[in-house]
């Protein structure tokens, strides 16, 4: 077999092999790129199916020739180690590269080069690409729903106020820090509720009343997830403690509550809130649909929150409980000052995941007739003046939600890293 040695790369012929190999890979890439971007088929002289397979075969041979262990060339070693460890890997590498190259020109021209963004009506969209004019014209509707245009500043102001109030904790004086939990659990929700009620709903201070039916778009998503978020956390904490309690009745009530909500889909809960819940209220008592939905989602998510917090409580070593008890602390003192601060720190990623799920679940309120972003899209899609732009709408909404959710998940990683303490 000595004679076939020249087929295998070794130390003596590294240079030749790497040059020939990279040339072949380059040829295959050029072939695919010219095919995809310039629509020129360089290999049209080859018979039928071989034309499509040509870059793959050439690329594979090239990568195979380049595969030299410890060649001494840093770039080559890096390439081999990362994308070219064996033939199978090389094949996958080429397939991924080719499919990206093939998909790029189409999607780029649809999304950017052939797309329209100018104009104010459907007539502006004559190109073959996406019609971003649609998004531009409907942007305010997608963000604020049917809320009157001239009052949009009220929603913005309310959001800015609520966010600013949320950051108060960072700037609080040292001697007030002990009231922080009290502030976030009780005072903050109340203030936020008042701000949103008086600013967005209006009806007093000379602001015109806007009924909740007109709320919508992304701002409604924020309002619903915000309230569910701040209410479901304390509720979840109560049920988590309840489930860990050694009083049997409280324990079983908590278990029933948690398992019930975790066992049913959110959509049925929303159906319940919209068709069944009014039957259970006193006759002359009217509760707004939005409030009912917020209550339903809060009860639902609280169960998930409770399970996450229970996980944190369970993972604390017994010694913490014993130590707290031996200092003469009672149940509440022990939990508030020793157990919960440690347990909550442990469950931050889990809680963040629950909140992420909550945000992703809010579009569901569409099924009970509240038009947040997904609902507004469904509405815009059926508008006779703007038929046929479902794709643009859903891509826009997906991007918006993706950015929100991705930012949240990255933030939760950061929090996790920040609060990680050696135990």
């Amino acid at each position, binding site marked *: 077999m000595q004679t076939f040695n020249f087929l295998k790369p070794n130390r003596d012929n590294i240079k030749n092999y790497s040059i020939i190999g990279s040339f072949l890979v380059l040829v295959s890439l050029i072939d695919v790129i010219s095919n995809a971007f310039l629509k020129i088929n360089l290999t049209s002289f080859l018979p039928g199916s071989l034309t499509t397979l040509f870059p793959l075969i050439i690329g594979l041979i090239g990568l195979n020739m380049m595969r030299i262990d410890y060649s001494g060339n840093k770039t080559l070693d890096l390439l081999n*180690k*990362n*994308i070219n*460890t064996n033939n199978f*890997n090389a094949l*996958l*590498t080429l397939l*991924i*590269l080719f499919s990206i190259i093939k998909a790029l020109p189409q999607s780029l021209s649809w999304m950017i080069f052939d797309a329209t963004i100018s104009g104010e009506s459907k007539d502006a969209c004559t190109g073959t690409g996406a019609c971003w004019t649609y998004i531009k014209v409907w942007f305010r509707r997608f963000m604020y729903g049917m809320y009157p245009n001239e009052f949009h500043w009220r929603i913005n102001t309310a959001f800015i106020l609520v966010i600013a109030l949320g950051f108060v904790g960072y700037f609080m004086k040292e001697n007030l820090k002990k009231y922080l939990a009290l502030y976030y659990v009780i005072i903050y929700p109340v203030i936020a509720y008042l701000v949103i009620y008086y600013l967005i709903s209006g009806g007093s201070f000379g602001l015109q009343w806007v009924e909740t039916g007109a709320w919508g778009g992304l701002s409604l998503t924020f309002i619903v997830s915000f309230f569910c978020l701040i209410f479901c956390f304390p509720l979840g904490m109560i049920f988590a403690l309840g489930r860990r309690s050694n*009083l*049997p*009745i*409280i324990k079983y*009530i908590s278990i029933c509550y948690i*398992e*019930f909500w*975790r*066992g*049913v*889909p*959110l*959509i*049925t*809960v929303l*159906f*319940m809130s919209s*068709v*069944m819940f*009014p*039957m*259970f*209220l*006193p*006759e002359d008592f009217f509760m707004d649909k939005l409030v009912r939905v917020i209550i339903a989602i809060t009860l639902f998510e609280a169960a998930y929150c409770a399970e996450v917090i229970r996980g944190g409580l369970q993972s604390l070593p017994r010694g913490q409980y014993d130590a707290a008890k031996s200092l003469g602390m009672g149940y509440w003192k022990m939990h508030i000052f020793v157990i919960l601060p440690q347990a909550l720190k442990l469950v931050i990623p889990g809680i963040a995941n629950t909140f992420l799920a909550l*945000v*992703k*679940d*809010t*579009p*569901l309120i*569409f*099924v009970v007739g509240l038009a947040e972003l*997904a609902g507004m*899209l*469904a509405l815009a*899609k059926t508008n006779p003046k703007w038929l046929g732009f*479902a*794709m643009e*709408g*859903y*891509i826009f*909404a*997906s991007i918006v*939600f*993706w950015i929100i*959710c*991705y930012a949240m*998940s990255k933030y939760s990683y950061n929090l996790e890293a920040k609060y990680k303490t050696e135990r």
Partner: protein
Amino acid sequence: MNNIIKRFIPQILAILFVVLIFGFLTLNAQTNMDNRGIDFGFDFLSQESSFDVQFSLIEYSGSDSYARAFLVGLLNTLLVSFISIIICTILGVIIGVARLSSNYLIKNSAAWYVEFFRNIPLLLQIFFWYYAALRALPMPEKANAWFGVTYMTVKGYYIPAMVWENLNVFLYCGLAAIISIIVMRNYASRLRDTQGKQIPVLLYSVALLIVLPLLSFIFGGVSLEFEIPELKKLSKISYIYEGGISLPPELIALVLALSLYTSTFVAECVRAGIEGVSKGQKEAAASVGLTPNQVLKLVIMPQALRIIIPPTTNQYLNLTKNSSLAAAIAYPDLVLVFAGTALMQTGKAIEIVSITMLTYLTISLTIAAIMNWYNKKIEIKEK
């Protein structure tokens, strides 16, 4: 004495609280229903439903009862969950393994796949597939055949139907094959424990699974024909495929969205499971002389599965619950058929919503109970 008070007062208060809430709600419901002239009861289940369902696995028409409509919805829910679970498992395992690949491109593509599909709300994904992507498919008359006999059109996916003769004989043969495989496996493991002999169980199992059903074709009088969908002209411009099975676009959109979305979570479970098996295990197994296949089968997989299976089952459960989003694109699942149409017609809000919730609850709790039993079984028994 002090202790007894401490123990009992909170519990009594809790009971009182729950009883008061339930009492208050029931009282209100009673008065409300009296005022509106609605009576409470489940008699309506046997009444004629008089509405039609587009897609159903069992025979169903408007003259059937509400109970049967419930069954139709439940079966549709289970169907879409079942298909999606299979697809999301396959995808999830591939992506999860790909995330651990040494290839930079594969690793990162898989990671971006997960980040991409996980962070878009499921409802939007369903809408995207149903209203945007599947609407771009060709009309029936312009559709190209996939694999020669299936047609993907804007009206649904048409696939050949199987027409069986003596299906029961075939099924018995399949059952016999499965039973004999189980018996053989037990025998093989006993043989290994007592005499240290190994027999190629997998090879024999595959052979049994192929040979026994084949025998049924030759001797059992079983025959199988395919009914291939054919294009038929309804009117001047309207065409449709006849024969075969038609999968409605709602089902396809739902399966696509559910399986792509859930596969990201399954992939994370698989990744965590494989990462959770320490490297030392692999090295130790190799050093006692096991072949790479045996290492994977006897050492890595049993330990990885112990980590993978519980969270994955949880994801399957989530998928089943999420399949209720079908109602948003009018796929006739349990929620749409029963909590939608049937509720609208009968107005029995309390009964219907409770039945729907109880059904989902039963599915969840059953799977959870099986999971707990399984977890107990595979738990590492420490001395």
